[in-house]
């Protein structure tokens, strides 16, 4: 009869556990007594506080762009157009009229690092050396690894005077300012002083200063009262990694956070009814499969097109995702200057997909493996989305094995390219067509690793020609025309399978005021106030 006793004890234990869990939820009320903004990130860990954050663009969004400035920053003040660049630590720049490879940047004179040291041209040179010059004493390979592709067109850089620097590019390259937004400038004094331990004492010039960090749990930043730009209106910023979307929702509803990135879409109605601010906006985002075009079935253009014809994007966006995404048939969306109107869009047409597969020599389909993330920056709800698409593919005969791995691991594997020792057909990784270098970075022959992230090793001479013209064009309208041609080619030949564009679902509690949801991956946190 001991079993009955055991059973009773067990049931009692369960009830107690449920009761305690309930208590916990009720008692942990809002943290908003001081002006502290708490954000639930979708990352599974805290992004590195070094000048090259981990966790993809979410790392830049909440840590990199908050702690540091680049020579050039992003203008995140507009809701109605895709974000563009704006002066950062450089107040202006110009390209030499005689030699378009020479850029002169005039620096701000009123900037101080968080540790009080004044900012000068030497600091730029120091940081460039740290990222670009392996012979320099403070060169850091792991930091440099994250920005390698943003530095590939820079040939040399030099200090002209204390507040002027000159950069020479390897060829005429009009996209340089966009690259420089990712080269963050840290205090040389702090790097020299702390060495390996710098990440625990990061010093930049950005709107927020580092306070402390509990690994895996939270990162606390505070307002930088002597920031040169718009000063933050809040006192503190706490960032919490929560890779699980229902955990983010729970934290938001119980008042533990004021801001949740992408909660479950089914909760939107209830959140709106409860007075939360549900924000959506178009932004240059695409959720694709980056295909292995070098070898295997995906090297055949018809197979890639067949896959594009086999996805029911409408059902995916509207039914599975409740309208927080829009179907993607190209890298960008209709209305964007780099969306090519002339290419026929990919529709949901399984019959056509089967025909194309048969033409390509796969009348019975084939097996392939996709590596997908479990969460993370811009990846939305990767597992249910992948499972949905897996079923679409199965209908036309493409049998996909889904291999789900953690986001930062996936970034590392993706940067290393497709593995040689096993068959991988695609990486599912959300990418950011935010700057004119988009097509250059992802599709140019010159961007094969290690010089870029064209990891599928797609190559097209005509595309390379258009991209060269775009790089050499310093006129925006002309440049966009060339990029539009490039967009047409990659839509037609589809080195990626285009799936959806995210609408940047983000939910803020009622008392968060003044936030502008920009058409960008990044966010300006200085305009926010808490009521």
């Amino acid at each position, binding site marked *: *009869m001991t079993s009955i006793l055991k059973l009773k004890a067990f049931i009692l234990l369960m009830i107690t556990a449920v009761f305690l869990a309930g208590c916990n939820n009720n008692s942990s009320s809002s943290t908003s007594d001081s002006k502290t903004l708490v954000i639930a990130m979708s990352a599974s860990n805290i992004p590195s506080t070094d000048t090259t954050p981990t966790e993809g663009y979410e790392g830049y969004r909440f840590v990199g762009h908050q702690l540091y400035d680049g020579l050039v920053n992003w203008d995140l003040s507009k809701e109605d157009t895709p974000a563009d660049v704006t002066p950062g630590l450089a107040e202006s720049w110009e390209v030499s009229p005689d030699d378009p490879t020479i850029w002169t940047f005039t620096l701000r004179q009123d900037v101080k690092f968080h540790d009080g040291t004044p900012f000068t041209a030497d600091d730029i040179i120091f940081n460039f050396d740290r990222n670009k010059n392996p012979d320099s004493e403070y060169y850091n390979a792991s930091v440099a690894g994250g920005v390698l592709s943003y530095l590939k067109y820079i040939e040399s850089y030099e200090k002209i005077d204390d507040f002027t620097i000159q950069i020479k590019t390897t060829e005429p390259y009009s996209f340089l300012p966009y690259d420089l937004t990712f080269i963050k400038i840290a205090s040389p004094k702090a790097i020299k002083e702390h060495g390996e331990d710098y990440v625990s004492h990061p010093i930049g010039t950005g709107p927020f200063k580092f306070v402390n960090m509990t690994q895996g749990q939270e990162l606390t930043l505070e307002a930088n009262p002597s920031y040169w730009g718009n000063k933050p209106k809040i006192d503190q910023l706490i960032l919490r990694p929560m890779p699980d979307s229902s955990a983010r929702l729970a934290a938001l509803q119980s008042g533990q956070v004021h801001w949740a990135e992408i909660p*479950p879409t089914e909760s939107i109605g209830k959140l709106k009814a409860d007075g939360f601010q549900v924000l959506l906006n178009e932004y240059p985002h695409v959720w694709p499969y980056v295909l292995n075009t070098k070898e295997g079935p995906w090297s055949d253009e018809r197979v890639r097109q067949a896959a594009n014809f086999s996805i029911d994007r409408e059902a995916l966006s509207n039914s*599975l995702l409740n309208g927080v995404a829009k179907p993607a048939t190209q890298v960008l969306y209709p209305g964007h200057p780099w969306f090519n109107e002339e290419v026929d869009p990919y529709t949901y047409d399984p019959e056509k997909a089967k025909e194309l597969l048969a033409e390509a020599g796969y009348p019975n389909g084939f097996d392939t493996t996709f590596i997908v993330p479990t969460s993370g920056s811009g990846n939305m709800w990767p597992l249910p989305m992948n*499972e949905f698409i897996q079923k679409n593919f199965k209908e036309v005969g493409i049998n996909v094995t889904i291999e789900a791995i953690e986001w930062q691991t996936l970034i590392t594997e993706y940067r290393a390219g497709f593995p040689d020792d096993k068959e991988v057909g695609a990486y599912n990784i959300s990418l950011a067509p935010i700057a004119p270098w988009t097509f250059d970075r992802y599709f140019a022959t010159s961007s094969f690793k290690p010089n870029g992230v064209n990891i599928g090793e797609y190559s097209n001479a005509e595309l390379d020609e258009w991209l060269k013209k775009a790089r050499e064009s310093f006129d925006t309208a002309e440049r966009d025309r060339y990029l539009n041609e490039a967009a047409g080619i990659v839509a037609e030949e589809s080195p990626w399978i285009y799936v959806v564009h995210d609408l940047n679902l983000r939910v803020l509690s009622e008392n968060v005021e003044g936030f502008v949801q920009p058409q960008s991956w990044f966010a300006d946190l200085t305009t926010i106030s808490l009521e």
Partner: protein
Amino acid sequence: MITENTGQLSNPVILNKEEKEDSRFKEFSRRFLKNRPAFLALILLGIIVISTIMAPIIAPYDPYEGEITNRLQVIGAEGHILGTDEQGRDILSRILYGGQLSLLAGIVPVLIAGLIGGSLGVMAGYFGGMINTIIMRTLDIFYAFPAILLAIGISAALGQGIDNIIIAISIVFIPPVARIAESAVKEVREEEFIEAARTTGAKNFSIIRYHILMNIFSRVFVYCTTQISISLVLASGLSFLGLGVSPPTAEWGVMLNNLKEQIFINPLVTVIPGLFIFISALTINLVADGFRDALEIKQ
């Protein structure tokens, strides 16, 4: 039990073998049936096991086909008794199919661990000395790690897949089974009938086969049955963490993980896979307890 048993075995001429087996089984059944919770648990467990085995016949829908427009139906929705999941698939059908893998992952590791751990334990216990030291101290290394961590570590190293989960849990269970077997053998080894067998010139192998195994079997068997529920929960846990089957395969742990997104929106549907893990583990435990009481083993 042990003394009773040895008594019987040391006087093998008194009863003929069949009669003896028969009466032992009768006694066991009588005791087990008297233990009502265990008996009811056995019936419930039987229903669960048989339904999952018969899933292809009784499942109302294909577990891998669903209408996306019909997703996240509540419990009791028309045509879907347990509702539908995030892809619009019938949850009842997925539970039935998923149970095959989940229950398999509960039983197979215990069988493997019982065989390997049992043999190692018997060898260590019977031969003693150096062999005992080598086997038992090697297995002790595994005790240095908490079981769940060890299982996570092994299956993470082996990679995703239910087969790797089974291997990982088997490895975790080998040392405790070996320990039980070893201590049981040590007790039996000193008995007079073993001595007697030895003096009549019986080989080690036949002594183990006829005398040792017969006497330790019930103890090892009961211990193993209590481990099935732990194995089931462990396997579901690893699967929940994403180390198990890859989508779209149905398995209770994975289903729980997929549905957890809906916990605040449709909590009842979310807990269904968890409820099945819970009920299965509980009934297995009660049945194992019943076996133990019926066999009068004190642990």
